[in-house]
């Protein structure tokens, strides 16, 4: 496969995933906090195409489910609810009192599929925003250090070496823990972006600095300087554009890393907290003893991470190929 095709494929797959998550409000059959306490830990709802007599139905349907008293559910074959498009302003659903849980429910009867889509918003948006922040900081500091050199450059690079030697998760936890623990969801979200992006800028800064160091000695830059161009002009016109390819490849590496950082923090209870879902706090519930024993569908957010990571990985690989 040529490089162009690989990039196009990875971009298309990632675009689809991100679009699905951006459209959570429409794709998800229920709200993220909508509880149906009568259906705790319901397994994924089976969608049927043939009725009891074995006849094929053009419109798929689901049966009503009821607890069997042993922690599991059975279908009530006398009550069928056809799948309908455009119910309650959402893409699909069934009429009340029927229910449809494509990926089952959690302990308080919330639809895991809906929470997966809404949770993806938090996790992916944190990854994207933190990447933007850390690239902005990284390019700014990297250009500054590489272009002007001197003691700020040495200080910055020593600090970067220190920060890169430390385990990132320990660093994240330490920074997070010294900040207030009980905050609103929006504050937690902003805080996660600030911490993850604020800690992560050293790696892009080092790479950008390297590019700037070699770039400022280029003939055309020297020539422009000879003609009396100011620092501001040189940086804007010649130095900054050189850093864009590095910033782009770094973005494909950093986004998945930061999504994982959000997942890890929320998993450990230091990120976004209930009832707002994030893939991290959903996985925390899935790793509880009773959930892993008999409710495997709750691992869905972990599985959803895989295509996201794979997409960015393929994109990064394709971009690095020359």
């Amino acid at each position, binding site marked *: 496969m040529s490089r162009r095709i690989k990039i196009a494929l990875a971009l298309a797959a990632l675009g689809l995933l991100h679009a699905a998550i951006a459209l959570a409000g429409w794709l998800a059959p229920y709200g993220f906090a909508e509880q149906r306490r009568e259906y705790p830990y319901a397994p994924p709802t089976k969608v049927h195409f043939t009725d009891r007599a074995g006849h094929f139905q053009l419109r798929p349907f689901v049966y009503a489910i009821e607890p069997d008293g042993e922690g599991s559910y059975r279908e009530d074959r006398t009550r069928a609810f056809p799948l309908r498009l455009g119910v309650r302003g959402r893409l699909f659903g069934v009429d009340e009192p029927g229910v449809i849980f494509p990926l089952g429910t959690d302990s308080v009867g919330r639809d895991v599929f809906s929470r997966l889509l809404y949770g993806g918003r938090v996790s992916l948006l944190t990854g994207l925003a933190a990447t933007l922040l850390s690239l902005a900081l990284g390019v700014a500091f990297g250009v500054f250090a590489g272009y002007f050199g001197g003691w700020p450059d040495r200080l910055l690079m020593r600090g970067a070496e*220190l920060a*890169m*030697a*430390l*385990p*990132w*998760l*320990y660093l994240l*936890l*330490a*920074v997070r*823990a*010294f*900040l*207030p*623990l009980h905050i609103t969801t929006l504050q937690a979200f902003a805080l996660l972006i600030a911490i993850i992006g604020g800690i992560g800028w050293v790696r892009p800064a080092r790479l950008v600095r390297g590019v700037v160091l070699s770039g400022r000695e280029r003939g055309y830059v020297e020539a422009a300087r000879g003609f009396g161009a100011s620092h501001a002009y040189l940086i804007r016109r010649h130095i900054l554009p050189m850093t864009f390819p590095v910033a782009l490849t770094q973005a494909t590496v950093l986004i998945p890393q930061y999504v*994982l950082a959000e*997942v*890890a923090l929320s*998993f*450990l*209870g230091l990120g976004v907290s209930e009832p707002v879902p994030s893939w991290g706090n959903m*996985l925390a519930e*899935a*790793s509880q*003893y009773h959930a*892993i*024993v008999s409710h*495997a569908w709750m*691992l869905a957010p*972990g*599985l959803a*991470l*895989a*295509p*996201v*990571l*794979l997409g960015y*990985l*393929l994109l990064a*690989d394709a971009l690095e190929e020359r």
Partner: protein
Amino acid sequence: MKYIARRALHAVILMIAVSVLSFLFADLAPGDYFSEMRLDPRMSAGAVEGMRSGAGLDRPLPVRYIRWAASVAHGDLGWSLAYNGPVTPLVWPRMGATLLLTGTATLLAWLVALPLGVWAAARRGTWRDGAVSAFLALLLSVPDLLLAIVFLAFAVRTGRFPAGGMTSAEFPSLGAAARVGDMARHLALPAAALALGMLPVLARHVRAGMIEAMDSPFALSARAQGIPRFRLLFRHLLPAALNPLISLFGLSLGTLLSASLLVEVVMGWPGLGPLFLEAIMARDFALALAVAMLSTAFLAAGNLVADILLYRADPRIRLKA
């Protein structure tokens, strides 16, 4: 030797920098171990202040730092407020557990990654190489957290492996051989989860390094001299590809500790990770600092080992120094 000494000095500077920064940062951060108590209506403000000064938290920052540094010099890592006991006996067994887990996982991962990477590189461009690459890419996109949870689920559902902990309840009464067996059974799944997380990164680098070595002129000349393929791969090409791999080993220690924290928390392995989490949630500064210092020491020691290996493996560094 000057080279090693310089690297060792680096390690010491790293430890000092981490401790100073931790103190500065904890000082800037709002609240400490006692701030939750202030919300308790049954405690008077005076009593809380008394406890704070009893713990020495009301002294100025430089004084606290020097007192801490002096006690560390005596081998005492401080006093844990949450456990109400000295920190040192709390952290040492945890350090041992983390070393055991990460050491085993690293060994496992390298044992698989080296032959796999060499094998794939030797078959570059064939469908076998493609299959290995695809498998590694897939494995790379499975988050460590999911691996750990799935392995835990495997342990719980099959009952073949213990779910959590490092030893069984009857461990103290077992004989020496049975003790080793018991610990190995507890170690198997966490180490496997951690090793599987590391494997794809390592194997991809081994493959890339080998391919680079294979393309170099000396490889062509060695092949022309009729050196057998196996000997060529492992005796001539692998050492040439080893230099960046050893650096990678040093650099990946931070990632290893981070992944280990998640595995330890999920699988109940009594290592440094869960203790660190506990300490920072309780704002137990002395304990958190002790864990941070030990993990920094772990990193510094690992990097030093990598530097020494590099010194042994790469004559260019020996000549330069």
